[in-house]
């Protein structure tokens, strides 16, 4: 799908996006990338230039065990809307939710694409890698999805694991993980596929996050002789967990608009209280902002209208690894530990620790009574045995006996 012949701005106009709107979007993107908003024209020029030259990223978008929430989330993007992304940023041949073809036709088309652009295309994966029943829990065109994934990933230049499910399995892998789900990165590693994986955790992912990766690539990438961007600079800017540093370098808590209330000790202890009405910090009601790396307070959601904490909900830490197990109960300070990890299946670590501490304390008290009963302490204690006296005399040569 190429767009040669019509200028980028003409195509934007056709979708009701003015040049001014587009530059506003570029300004927002610049802020997200940690650049000054004066970089907006440069970003605009890069995007328009790439689009007009036809030197777009060839890309393929596949779904694993997905709820399609990430695709839905993309559809909420400010500018560009979903069509803009599909048509103008990425030369996207396949997106299983919105494409016409299905099953065998899809596989054949994708295969043809992968051969044509081998080693040069971006593979975007949305959804969990389902390995249950040897991968047969999820089949496309008569083949397990895991075969499809391995095939297309091994031919791609880079894989973008889009959303928590693709990163590590997301909520699908919450205990007891009946589908034996896993993430794209761990799965490809286990199969020896060396294609780099960019992790964009979050449930769902925020369209601005994907856009920022693409724009970052446009700004940084050199182009090879075919005009295809070289993605090395993007891959080199990932953190130890394979996430773009500029998106996951700080916690929700670091940038939270309620942070001042946290430092002042102004907390919501109960929903429906006056404190909640005053917009106080949600920490005691289980906010996972302090342990969740993401930029929600800055990017925000749904065309930057609001986000979880702004709308009064504690962060549930959806960008964490295995985030449901890690963060449930969502209104508690700790996850539970023990037999099960969800709901009533486990024990609160604080209660477990207090119980062990209580047992230790009780044991000491009981021991004290034992010491008394054994006449080791108290008025009738018999401490000094003859043996001890002998030993003390022997060892009291220098400095004198005590």
């Amino acid at each position, binding site marked *: 799908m190429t767009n040669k012949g019509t200028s980028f701005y003409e195509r934007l106009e056709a979708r009701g996006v003015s040049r001014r709107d587009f530059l506003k979007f570029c300004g927002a993107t610049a802020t997200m990338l940690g650049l000054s908003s004066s970089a907006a024209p440069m970003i605009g020029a890069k995007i328009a230039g790439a689009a007009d030259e036809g030197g777009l990223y060839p890309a393929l978008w596949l779904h694993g065990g997905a709820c399609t929430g990430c695709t839905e989330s993309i559809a909420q993007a400010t500018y560009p809307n979903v069509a803009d992304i599909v048509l103008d940023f990425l030369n996207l041949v396949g997106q299983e939710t919105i494409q016409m073809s299905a099953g065998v036709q899809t596989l054949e088309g994708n295969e043809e694409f992968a051969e044509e652009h081998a080693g040069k295309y971006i593979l975007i994966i949305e959804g969990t890698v389902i390995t249950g029943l040897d991968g047969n829990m999820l089949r496309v065109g008569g083949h397990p999805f895991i075969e499809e994934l391995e095939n297309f990933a091994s031919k791609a230049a880079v894989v973008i694991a889009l959303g928590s499910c693709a990163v590590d399995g997301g909520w699908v892998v919450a205990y007891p993980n009946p589908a034996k789900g896993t993430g794209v990165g761990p799965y490809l590693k286990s199969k020896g596929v060396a294609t780099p994986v960019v992790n964009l955790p979050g449930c769902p992912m925020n369209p601005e996050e994907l856009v920022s990766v693409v724009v970052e690539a446009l700004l940084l990438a050199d182009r090879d002789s075919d005009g295809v961007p070289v993605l090395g600079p993007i891959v080199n800017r990932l953190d130890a967990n394979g996430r773009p540093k500029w998106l996951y370098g700080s916690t929700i808590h670091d940038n939270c608009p309620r942070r001042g209330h946290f*430092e002042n*000790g102004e907390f919501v202890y109960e929903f429906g209280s006056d404190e909640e009405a005053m917009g106080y910090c949600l920490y005691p009601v289980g906010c996972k902002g302090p342990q969740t790396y993401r930029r929600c307070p800055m990017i925000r959601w749904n065309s930057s209208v609001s986000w979880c904490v702004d709308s009064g909900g504690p962060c549930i830490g959806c960008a964490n690894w295995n985030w449901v197990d890690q963060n449930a109960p969502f209104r508690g*300070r700790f996850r539970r530990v023990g037999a099960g990890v969800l709901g009533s299946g486990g024990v609160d670590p604080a209660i477990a620790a207090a119980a062990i501490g209580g047992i230790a304390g009780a044991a000491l008290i009981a021991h004290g009574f034992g010491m008394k009963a054994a006449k080791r302490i108290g008025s009738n*204690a018999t401490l000094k045995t003859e043996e001890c006296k002998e030993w003390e005399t022997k060892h*009291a040569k220098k400095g004198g006996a005590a």
Partner: protein
Amino acid sequence: MAHKPVKEAHPLTFILTHWINLLAMFFLVLSGFYIHFPFIPGLMGLARGTHFFWMFVLLFNLLFRIIASFFVRTTNMPGTREQDLDYKNWGLQGANTHQLWPTVKYYLFLKKDYPISAKYASLQKIAYLATIPLTLAAAYTGFALWGPTSQIPFFQAGTRWWASLFNWGGGGALMPMRILHYWIMWAFLIFTAVHAYLANIYNFAPSKMIFAGIEEPDALIGH
């Protein structure tokens, strides 16, 4: 083995380091409980400041205590005023050999007399020495959670490893680290309870000595 606690056992240097340890642990535990759950409003900034300050104090005190043990002289045996360089009390000593099991038996009422041992008995020495890695573990897990240091690769690697044990695939979720940090505090609380109990079970002479340097003329303790 019954003996009298003598002031030469704990010279002023170690009375001070013991006080600093106690104060640091008190403030760290109190502020730590508050940070875990702010049971009354209004003090979070104070609690966090207190927590960070006393952790650094505790770490420097530990370092000082270890260095000082090579220069400060303390008694080398129970029941004597004879002194030697303190670090010698912390290694494996002849007087400790074959004493671990008899010590355990004594506390389980399976043996009548406390075994003759060095200044610190086998169990005591193990427990005291264990506070060193425990303090370092508390510091490490704390730095792994603290915003300014959590992204340093040395701490991030630990977060990833620890999370991977409970959460296949790793990824560096902070929750397991948070729980570990909390449990280390409880390990300190239990240590402190046992320590205070065993030190003072016979009488409070050992406390008077370690806190104030006062020697009770007639006090005898059973171990």
